[in-house]
């Protein structure tokens, strides 16, 4: 073994590192610096992509947005005259309908799967595992298939026609797995001691769930609901074939209409009004940013609340 070329103080013992080993370490460090540089590039490129898409849409869209844009109805035609008032209303109605339909079903299913399913005997556990398989499958179905299903089942077979009802039902099918999954997770993070304490005090199982477990899991559940709201606002394919294309103000749950996302699509494909499309897109992006902020705030409260236990 050769001697180290590094000078030593009298307190150090003789190092036995060879020059070859020093060179090896240096080359490994160099490789690491290069690789880390690439990884940093990856992280920065991701931010750059987001900035490009969001930034461009917002910048172009804001030019078009004013009070008139938001409060006038679209007039149709090749140049896409008018604003987006009816689409905003349709989007809000649709969100309300899908949430109202999907939330009770989703939370109920999650409660059963987390709180009751473990204790049953006989045929029920088999039903439950098939049901779980159903939820997982549903989560993987592409949105256009939900659209086709909505078209053939709600629009045609049940004769609801192109309406907020058909679209709401189809949309509820779409977000049901999301609500079930997030509610399940929220329920599972509630400590067992909560349930056991309540039962020890003489409450029944349902009383425990209603008064102790659900309130504790509430932030997580609300996160799931808001996530679904974001999904409904962004979705297009499902509603494309169940809402019809009308840009008029919906008069009832049986009226058709256009969501903002659909309106953007029609503007981009059928008219030359790319500026209005950008405007609609900007409103959509701002909505999603707000929704994300709310979700992040709630998630932080959820973990903080548990830490305080």
């Amino acid at each position: 073994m050769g001697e180290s070329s590094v000078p030593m103080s009298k307190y150090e013992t003789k190092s036995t590192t060879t020059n070859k080993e020093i060179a090896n370490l240096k080359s490994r460090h160099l490789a690491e610096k290069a690789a880390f540089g690439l990884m940093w590039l990856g992280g920065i490129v991701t931010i750059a992509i987001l900035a490009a898409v969001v930034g461009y849409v917002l910048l172009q869209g804001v030019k078009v947005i004013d009070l008139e844009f938001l409060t006038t109805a679209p007039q149709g035609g090749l140049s896409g005259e008018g604003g987006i008032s009816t689409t905003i209303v349709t989007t809000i109605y649709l969100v309300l309908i899908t949430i109202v339909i999907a939330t009770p079903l989703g939370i109920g299913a999650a409660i059963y799967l987390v709180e009751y399913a473990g204790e049953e005997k006989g045929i029920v556990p088999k039903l439950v595992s098939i049901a779980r398989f159903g939820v997982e499958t549903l989560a993987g179905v592409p949105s256009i298939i939900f659209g086709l299903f909505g078209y053939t089942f709600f629009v045609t077979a049940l004769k609801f026609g192109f309406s907020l009802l058909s679209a709401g039902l189809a949309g509820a099918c779409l977000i049901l797995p999301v609500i079930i999954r997030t509610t399940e997770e929220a329920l599972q993070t509630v400590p067992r001691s909560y349930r056991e304490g309540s039962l020890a005090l003489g409450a029944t199982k349902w009383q425990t769930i209603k008064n102790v477990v659900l309130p504790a899991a509430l932030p997580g559940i609300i996160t799931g609901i808001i996530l679904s709201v974001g999904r409904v606002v962004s979705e297009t394919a499902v509603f494309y074939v169940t809402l019809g294309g009308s840009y008029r103000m919906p008069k009832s749950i049986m009226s058709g209409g256009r969501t903002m996302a659909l309106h953007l699509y029609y503007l981009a494909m059928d008219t030359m009004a790319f500026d209005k499309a950008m405007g609609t897109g900007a409103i959509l992006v701002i909505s999603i940013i707000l929704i994300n902020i709310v979700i992040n705030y709630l998630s932080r409260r959820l973990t903080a609340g548990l830490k305080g236990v």
Partner: protein
Amino acid sequence: METRRVIDNTIKYLLLLTTLVSLLIVALIFIFTLREGLPAFQEIGLKTFLLGEVWRPGQEQYGILAMVAGSILVTIGAIILGVPLAVGGAIFLAEIAPDSMQTIVRPAIQLLAGIPSVVYGLFGMVIIVPLVRELKVPGNTGFGLLSASIVLAVMILPTIASIAEDAIRAVPRSYKEGSLALGATHWQTITGVILPAARSGIIAAIILGIGRALGETMAMIMVIGNSVVMPSPLNNNPLTLFMRQARTLTGNIAVEISYATGVHESALFATGVVLFILIMLVNSSARFLMRERANS
């Protein structure tokens, strides 16, 4: 006391019912899509439908091979462009990024995931397509597989990155610490120990990204050009294949469903069945891989 017990039991069965609703919906989707699509399979024949290169409903010709090719090619393009960036980003977030970068990059990925697909499509139409048109090859309109691959890569980036990051974070610290203790650099540890350990999770992330890519509809319609002819290279260079306009299976359904009737409509549902089965296979393999990892 007795009333409380009765209420408890009733509620339990009510909740069981809500759980079965999901199962009911899946069954209904399966039944109704199949019911609408069956006439097409019967009249056109499975082989002609799946392998036919010509899609001309006006002349009773229903072959979806061109659309299958469109979907697969655009997915391959998106994977080639998106996976290095996504996995690199995942490694960055899990191992390399300081806290300051984490608070920027992670919400950025979350936001990318939530942006509506039509907004990506619009951005693609207005920015990406003109950029691709700059490639001066005769026949290149800007619309086509390349633009669609770029847009799709951005759309599946968050999916792959977040699941891959979870997989990397799940590798036990002892692996990393052992490797570092043996004298390996951080990067050697990442490539030699952590990534192999997280391999099945990362592959699952990529497969889920593939599933997402196959299911995307509206953004694809907006940038891919919607040609129903089998994609082929523009000139001698095989890479120009990606400058060809094409149509995806999803786009086929969405574009024609509004005016299709009879066998045509049934053929679109049959396309849906094919798509459904394809994505089911993809997602099942991903789930299988993730469960394998959880059990090992």
